[in-house]
């Protein structure tokens, strides 16, 4: 499989795994089965206390990608990102600025503002956003390392509701486009990869599965299959069967 370059780092896996909503004991198995090299975690849950610190459960060889969930404003996201850098010893940060407790939809404008500040401070900034072309350009100009458009609301498992708009971002933005949120099934992850997404991020689809490691493995295969299909170049889609020459077959010379 081809390499995936993000923020100057080289990865072999294009599957970013989330760590929320399931038992911490299962994280190691999920990472292994997923073949993931990047795992996200909410800084607000990475507690420094004695009980159940998620940081103790993350395998040493994966890149920790802290997110700023809980932030309502650009300023809060910036402050959480700085704390995250200290705690996780990592420059990677996923910006989440959410002002809606019901749908958890991101605030693109505030996200672009936070991206600008953090990119200047040397972070590898990965903004989570609603797939809007203008906003994506703003993120890119602000120094984002990639673009993370949502397929559907976080945790909804609804799939690629925003498919056409994600395709526009893939076609127009020169940064890696990582589909984040909403992917509910391996087939949807595969589809995003076929479209040309650089990677996908999945949490709830795995956390809510009957067998978590098994589902992580299923996503790994789907992501690889989708990437291969993209690299191979998909065949053209035609409306009708392609009979050899129904009208011109009578011609003799």
């Amino acid at each position: 499989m081809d390499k995936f370059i993000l923020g100057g780092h080289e990865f072999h896996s294009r599957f970013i795994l989330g760590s929320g909503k399931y038992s911490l004991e299962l994280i190691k198995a999920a990472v292994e089965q997923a073949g993931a090299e990047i795992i996200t975690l909410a800084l607000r849950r990475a507690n420094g206390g004695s009980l159940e610190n998620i940081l103790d459960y993350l395998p040493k060889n994966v890149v920790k990608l802290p997110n700023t969930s809980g932030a309502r404003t650009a300023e809060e996201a910036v402050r959480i990102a700085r704390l995250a850098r200290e705690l996780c010893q990592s420059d990677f940060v996923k910006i989440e600025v959410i002002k809606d407790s019901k749908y958890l939809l991101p605030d693109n404008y505030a996200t672009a503002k936070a991206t600008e500040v953090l990119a200047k401070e040397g972070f590898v900034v990965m903004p989570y956003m609603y797939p809007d072309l203008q906003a994506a350009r703003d993120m890119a100009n602000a120094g984002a390392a990639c673009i993370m458009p949502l397929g559907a609301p976080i945790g909804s498992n609804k799939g690629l509701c925003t498919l056409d708009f994600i395709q526009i971002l893939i076609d127009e933005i020169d940064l890696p486009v990582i589909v984040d949120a909403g992917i509910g099934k391996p087939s949807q992850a595969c589809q995003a990869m076929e479209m040309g997404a650089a990677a996908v991020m999945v949490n709830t689809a795995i956390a809510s599965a009957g067998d978590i490691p098994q589902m992580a493995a299923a996503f790994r295969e789907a992501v690889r299959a989708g990437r291969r299909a993209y690299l191979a170049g998909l065949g053209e889609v035609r409306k009708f069967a392609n009979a050899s020459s129904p009208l011109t077959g009578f011609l003799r010379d």
Partner: protein
Amino acid sequence: MEDKFFNTTIYNEESRLAAQNLVADYLVYQEGMEVLESQMLEQVLDLRTAFNPEAYGTEEVLRAIESDKRTVEDFGALLSPAALPFLEQIAQAAQKERQKYFGNNVHFFTPLYLANYCENYCVYCGFNCHNQIHRARLNAEQMEREMQVISATGMQEVLLLTGESRKMSSVEYIGEACRLARKYFKVVGLEIYPVNSDEYAYLHSCGADYVTVFQETYNPEKYGQLHLAGHKRCFPYRFYAQERALRGGMRGVGLAALLGLDDFRRDALAVGVHAMLLQKRYPHAEIALSCPRLRPIINNERITPLDVGERQLLQIVCAYRLFLPYASITVSSRECARVRDNLMSICANKISAGVSTGIGGHGGSGLGDEQFEIDDGRSLEEIFVAMKGRGLQPVMADYIFV
């Protein structure tokens, strides 16, 4: 007209007499109380009045269970007596929503009672100013000792509580407690007397992130019969506490009805629509619900929540979950371990542990008496192990104060 939801177990001779001789001033704002420009109270009361629990049948209940975007009508159907025969299906649907929004996470916190002085006369409450109990207030040193003991157990979220006395537990006193608590805990919540929005802003600046205020009952007349004196007698000022807290910059708010005071189905509906309207007006706010049932208090062991049995409690909490899938739901130590643990697996997501509702109850020697009798006295460690045993993942802190 006879009130079939009149709970005789909560009155004694004194409070019965006091209730008979009152003027109807429970809708009147008292001096110093901030008045908000808001129609939310009328909206909630209109929906509560329009709700007739007897008007639903099997068809409405099944539609509500199967819907994927539940309306106020669906919520009403889920709370109706007609829904009780379908409790198993309702519980299964609620568990699916719980899974979707919270996975297997269970959030932990513990209450810390700072003082039990109170100027209110709420007939069902152990802290009421006519109840002969041992009163106490922690000083800064005592508070800090309690916080150290709690923090050493691994707890990272604390809920600071006081009785409702501005005189004995002033806003400055509570602010000082918040500042101390921020040294030991990642999340600090408040359950104190309602204050004005500028005072909430001050408490937020001291480190508090959450404000919980129970309306007790959303029936104004019944509210007037139960809250006989003090600031709490003002029904609308209490109702708008969450809005004032959010305007003061708090991250989240909690609300509840005390089940057993009035028609619990109507009160539960009011809690749900109050939460829904708060979320709509303040979409950034975290919304949390509780589901307390009446408990015995010192000097009145007879208090019961009347018709709110375990089945009804489960029905209410599942209806909350199905109507407001994103809301946090707490089950307090008023309930026994069996009920709490099962509710956590099905529909609730937040649990208190290592609870004492008295003053100074963590450091060893209790200084003041309890607000009510708790049923689940398990330590953090015991509940932690119980949750893990059920396949649930304890989460000690879920917020950062920024």
